[in-house]
C-alpha cells in the first residue's frame, strides 16, 4: 500500500483510477458473463460489483502474466460458480424482499423481460451451466479454446467436448422452439 501511495505522488495511476479504468473497459463484459450464469439481472449486478471489489483488493497481486481481461474473466467465472453453489442462490426470489415503493426494475431488466422475441437467449439459458458457459465464451466472447481452458481451469479436450455437446443441445432446443439462426 505504501508503495502505491508513492506511485500516486509521482503522478502515476492510482489504484482507484486503475479500477475505474478496468470497470469502464470490462464492466459490461463481466456483467454479461454473470447474467449468463445466474440468469437474473439483479444478481448479475451484485456479482459484477463483487468482482470489481475483489479485483481492487488483489490489484497489487496481478502479475501481468495474463491480460487483465483473462484475469477478470477468471474472477467473474469463479464468483458466479460460488453463487450458483450457495444456498442463498437456491432460495433467491427476484424482487421478493423489496417493497413496491422501493423496488424499481432497471431499464435493462424491462427490455429483456418485455422482449417477446428472445428465443435464442432462452434456449441458451435453458442449457446446463457447463454447456452454457463454453458456448457463451466461445461464440459470444469469441475466446479461443486455450483461453477458455485457462479461465475455467479445464483441459482443452474437455472444452472441445462440451462445445460439441453444447451445440447439439442448443440446436435441439432451437428446433424444439422452431427458431432458426
Amino acid at each position, binding site marked *: 500500500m505504501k508503495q502505491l501511495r508513492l506511485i500516486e505522488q509521482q503522478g502515476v495511476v492510482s489504484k482507484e483510477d486503475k479500477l*475505474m479504468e478496468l*470497470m469502464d473497459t470490462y464492466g459490461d463484459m463481466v456483467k454479461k458473463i454473470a447474467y449468463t450464469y445466474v440468469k437474473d439481472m439483479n444478481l448479475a449486478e451484485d456479482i459484477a*460489483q463483487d468482482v470489481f471489489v475483489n479485483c481492487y483488493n488483489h490489484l497489487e497481486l496481478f502479475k501481468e502474466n495474463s491480460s487483465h481481461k483473462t484475469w477478470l474473466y477468471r474472477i467473474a467465472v469463479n464468483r458466479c460458480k460460488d453463487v450458483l453453489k450457495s444456498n*442463498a442462490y437456491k432460495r433467491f426470489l427476484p424482487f421478493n424482499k423489496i417493497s413496491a415503493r422501493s423496488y424499481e426494475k432497471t431499464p435493462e431488466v424491462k427490455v429483456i423481460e418485455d422482449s417477446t422475441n428472445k428465443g435464442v437467449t432462452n434456449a441458451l439459458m435453458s442449457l446446463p451451466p457447463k454447456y452454457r458457459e463454453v458456448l457463451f465464451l466461445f461464440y459470444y466472447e469469441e475466446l479461443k479454446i486455450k483461453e477458455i481452458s485457462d479461465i475455467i481451469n479445464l483441459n482443452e479436450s474437455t472444452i472441445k467436448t462440451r462445445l460439441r455437446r453444447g*451445440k447439439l443441445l442448443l440446436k435441439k432446443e432451437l428446433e424444439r422452439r422452431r427458431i432458426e439462426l
Partner: protein
Amino acid sequence: MNDKDFFQLKEQLDKESYQHISFSENEKGRVMMRISEKEKHNKRKIGQTIVLTIATLFVVVGGGALAISEIQKSPEATVEKSVDVTEEAPVEDIQVNEDDTEMTSNASEDTLDDKAWEDKTITEGLTENDPQNVQEFIAQFDEIYKEPLPEQYSDDPALYYQIGAMLIFTSLDMNYKAEGVAVEKDLQNLRDVAAIVREEHEARYAHLGLENENPHKYEDQFKEPSERLEQGHVYVKALLNDLNIALNDAEGTTEGYTYMLDGEKIEELEAFIRNE
C-alpha cells in the same frame, strides 16, 4: 445447422438481450462506495484495537497502583473513617434525597421509554463487508457522507447524492431495523428523505420519455437537480450526523433533526417530507 449458423449466435443474443446489458455509472459508484466503506471499517478496527489495548493497560496499571496504595494504608485508620461517616449523615438529607431519587427515576423512566431502543437488523442478504447492525450502518454512511465528493462526480454532484440515497433507502427497507419510539421515527424520516432524493433524481430524466433504455446513457440531457433534491440531500446528511451522535456517541455538533436527541428542527424536516 452448421458452424456458420452458430456464428450468428452472438448477433442474435445481442439483438435479443445482451446489447442492453451494461455496467452503469451507478454500479461503478457503488463499487467505489463499498471499497471506501471497507477501508474505513478496517481503519476503525485498527483504531478500536489500539484503544482497547491502551484501556486494558490503563486498567491493569491503575488497578495495580490502587492495590499497592491500599496495602500501604493502615487497617485501623480505615475502620475509624467509615464509622465517622455513618454517624454524621443527617436523616433529613437522606429523606430529601429519596424524594428526588423517586422523581428522577420517574422522569428518567419516561425518557428512557422513548429513547430506549433495540436493534432488529435482518442480516439475511448481508455480506461480511456490510454493516451488521443499525449502529454500524449509520456510522459508515455518516462517514461516507462527510467525505469529499469523488472527483468523477464534480460536474454533477446530484448523481452521486442519489446513489447514496438509493442505498440508504433500500438498506433501511430491507435490512436495518430498530425498535424504539424515537429511533423508529428517526429512521423513518431518514428513509423518507432518501426516497425524496431518489424521486427527484428520476424527475431529472422523466421528460426524455425513455421506456426501455438505461437513462444514464443520456445524462447530458438530464434537467438540473431540483431544490428539493438538494435540500433532501442536506437532510439526509444531517440525519446521519445526528443519528451517529445519538446511537454511537460520535463526536460533533447536532443539527437538531432527530427525536433521539430531542431536536428542535424536527417539524421543519417533517414539513419538508410532507411537501408543505
